[in-house]
């Protein structure tokens, strides 16, 4: 472990926890000056996480399962908490689970945000969360062989794909409504799309009473792939491909997780360039979502205009990185390309053009008569639900919570500037849209600021030695919210474990609450407002509770209804 010279941030939380729960904390390890991992006794795990979460302004960023049997004879679970109280830092609560008894007390009853993570760790590692209210599989298909846990080191080759045994899904969708409802299934597959999800809307007439959904139809097994087949430096390119919109944010998060683990000091210029590119990515991503919001509210001319202007952001990325989408700019230790004087000038020119053009388009959008009517008060995310489930990005900021990784835990070039954070209290689609608008203009300002006084010097350092079994967090604020990566280095220049959590993962669980109480024609709009790397949900099954009838409606039809709001497709 490299010596940490800066003063430690976050010690007070651990001290408070030790006082509240004497003898529960077994070990305390610091990865960086503001990242600590504490090992607690297994039965103290739920209370330790709850204390940090609710008593000390913690938010659950991710949870990592790890098969450490070859290292210390146990499985590990790591609950990553982003501490956003007086001291901003990350505290990771770790508990060791014995090999012969692979179960642990579930945290979900105390902290609901843990629900998806615990379902996933049971699927992937066979670690049973005792007391978890939701016993269904999350990631694995329904007919995946029992007792085959993909991420255990001794379970399977990364290329193994069991044959499907059933044609139909047996997944049990949950409906909490008290009245009788009709089911509207939406999804799961579309022949031309790569991001399927299956939604079930439980409706009474036109009103959504409850909703359930399942994702992971296209789980790509990236974590297993990275651990088995790729070298640690190649994974930056794989991380670029986690998302088709905000892949660079993942690449930076991954690279900084390894840099944090090995104590690598990335040159300031490399850091600034990373931030410039992250903001470039935000430009095109937010324009995409603003375009989609137009599309879903039936304002297709606006959609076309936003996508026309978005092309300038794509050109900007192409000029700076050599590619419109997969930037391939990161290596462990910095970036691969510098920004030259001439590129700087063209960037400033494009930024100026984007500012004037988007200003005009926003003006048009906001003065479109029925826009506000479609988005105001629709898809409400209650601030308390947001507090319980730790959503991220514009979704949580739209419900009044001031959370932005760039400001809370400055990384890369954000250490050099002050990042403004926008919040809205409307809790609706309008709030989320307004936040994206404000952030778009912030991004332009950040790019200008960083280009104006970019630190000089190298952009990449190779001055480090790769050491096995070091771990740390890496994080970025992607356009959709915080991306959180946890990496543990391994032997042979490979990773021992790579845990990658995309921002939308934290936003899916709250969607259910956002859908409740709205009408079916708003469903695509609400789903679009969390800006999921858009799941092309193909069909919707609508189940009318009162009539006990079910009808499957094509997604196209559903989307048409959302835009036109005439000729209801319901039976």
């Amino acid at each position, binding site marked *: 472990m490299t010596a940490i010279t800066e003063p430690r941030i976050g010690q007070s939380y651990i001290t408070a926890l030790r006082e509240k729960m004497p003898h529960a904390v077994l070990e305390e390890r610091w990865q960086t000056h503001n990242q600590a991992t504490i090992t607690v006794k297994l039965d103290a795990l739920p209370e330790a996480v709850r204390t940090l979460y609710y008593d000390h302004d913690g938010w659950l960023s991710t949870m990592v399962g790890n098969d450490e049997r070859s290292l210390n004879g146990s499985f590990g679970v790591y609950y990553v908490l982003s501490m956003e109280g007086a001291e901003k830092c990350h505290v990771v609560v770790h508990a060791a689970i014995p090999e012969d008894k692979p179960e642990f007390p579930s945290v979900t009853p105390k902290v609901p945000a843990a629900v998806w993570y615990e379902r996933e760790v049971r699927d992937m590692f066979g670690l049973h969360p005792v007391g978890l209210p939701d016993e269904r599989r999350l990631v694995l298909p329904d007919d995946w062989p029992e007792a085959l846990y993909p991420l255990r080191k001794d379970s399977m080759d990364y290329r193994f794909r069991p044959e499907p045994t059933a044609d139909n899904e047996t997944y049990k969708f949950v409906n909490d409504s008290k009245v009788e409802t009709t089911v509207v299934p939406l999804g799961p597959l579309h022949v031309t799309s790569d991001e399927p999800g299956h939604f079930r809307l439980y409706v009474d007439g036109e009103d959504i009473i409850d909703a359930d959904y399942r994702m992971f139809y296209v789980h790509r097994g990236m974590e297993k792939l990275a651990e088995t087949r790729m070298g640690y430096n190649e994974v930056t*390119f794989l991380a670029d491909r986690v998302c088709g919109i905000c892949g660079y944010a993942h690449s930076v998060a991954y690279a900084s997780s390894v840099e944090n683990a090995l104590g690598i000091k990335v040159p300031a210029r490399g850091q600034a360039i990373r931030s410039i590119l992250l903001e470039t990515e935000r430009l095109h991503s937010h324009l995409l979502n603003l375009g989609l919001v137009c599309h879903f509210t039936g304002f297709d001319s606006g959609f076309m205009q936003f996508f026309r202007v978005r092309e300038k952001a794509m050109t900007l990325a*192409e*000029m700076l990185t*050599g*590619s419109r989408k997969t930037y391939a700019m990161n290596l462990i230790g910095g970036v691969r*390309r510098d920004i030259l004087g001439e590129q700087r000038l063209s960037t400033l020119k494009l930024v100026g053009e984007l500012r004037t053009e988007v200003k005009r388009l926003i003006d048009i959008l906001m003065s479109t008569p029925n826009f506000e009517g479609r988005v105001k008060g629709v898809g409400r995310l209650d601030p308390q639900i947001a507090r319980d489930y730790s959503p991220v990005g514009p979704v949580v900021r739209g419900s009044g919570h001031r959370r932005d990784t760039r400001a809370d835990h400055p990384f890369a070039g954000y250490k050099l500037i002050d990042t403004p954070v926008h919040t809205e209290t409307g809790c609706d689609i309008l709030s989320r849209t307004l936040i994206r608008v404000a952030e778009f203009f912030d991004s332009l300002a950040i790019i200008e600021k960083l280009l104006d006084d970019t630190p000089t010097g190298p952009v990449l350092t190779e001055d480090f030695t790769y050491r096995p079994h070091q771990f740390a967090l890496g994080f970025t604020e992607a356009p959709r919210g915080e991306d959180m990566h946890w990496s543990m280095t391994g032997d042979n220049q490979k990773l021992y474990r790579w845990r990658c959590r995309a921002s939308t993962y934290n936003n899916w669980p709250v969607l259910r609450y956002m859908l409740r109480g709205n009408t079916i024609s708003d469903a695509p709009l609400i789903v679009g407002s969390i800006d999921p790397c858009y799941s092309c949900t193909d069909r919707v099954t609508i189940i009318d509770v009162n009539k006990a009838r079910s009808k499957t409606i094509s997604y196209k039809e559903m989307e048409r209804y959302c835009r036109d709001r005439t000729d209801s497709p319901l039976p």
Partner: protein
Amino acid sequence: MLKLLREVFRTGEATVKYPFAPAEVSKDFRGKPEHDSVSCIACAACTIACPPNAIAMETDVEAETRTWSISYGRCIFCGRCEEACPTGAIKLSADFELAVARKEDLTTKAVFRLAKCRSCGEPLAPAKEVAYVADLINAFCTSPEEADRTRLLVATCPECKRKHDVEQVASLGIERQLENRR
């Protein structure tokens, strides 16, 4: 509504003539990697650097050849090969139109001859790689004799080198010297 109309008129035609006119790409665009088999020495540095294993090397001892290949279907256009190449034999071009009618056409190959070990005659390494190293040696060696000796070493297979070492050590007669000293 009027604002939108004004924007539409201001914009005019937003589309381009592609594919009927060429599409411009940025100056340092990362497109199709072009391989120059003349300057390539088949050292396999690109094979190791390539994250998706699009570049591969296959050695056929029987035929005494080594085949370099790239599959443009697997390539992610990251340009790590270009960075790794010691001779500048692979460069990313601005070409992005890679569609082909048959899958096999996505793969490009180059076959290199293997040099034989000076001592045993077994295939050793690509002839061009051995020649490349031999050329470099002149720059490092102080005397022509030393250069000749090192060149010979480079063209010898590890197995033979080991054998020669043993023989050399034996010929020094360490045992005898030890005896004498006693």
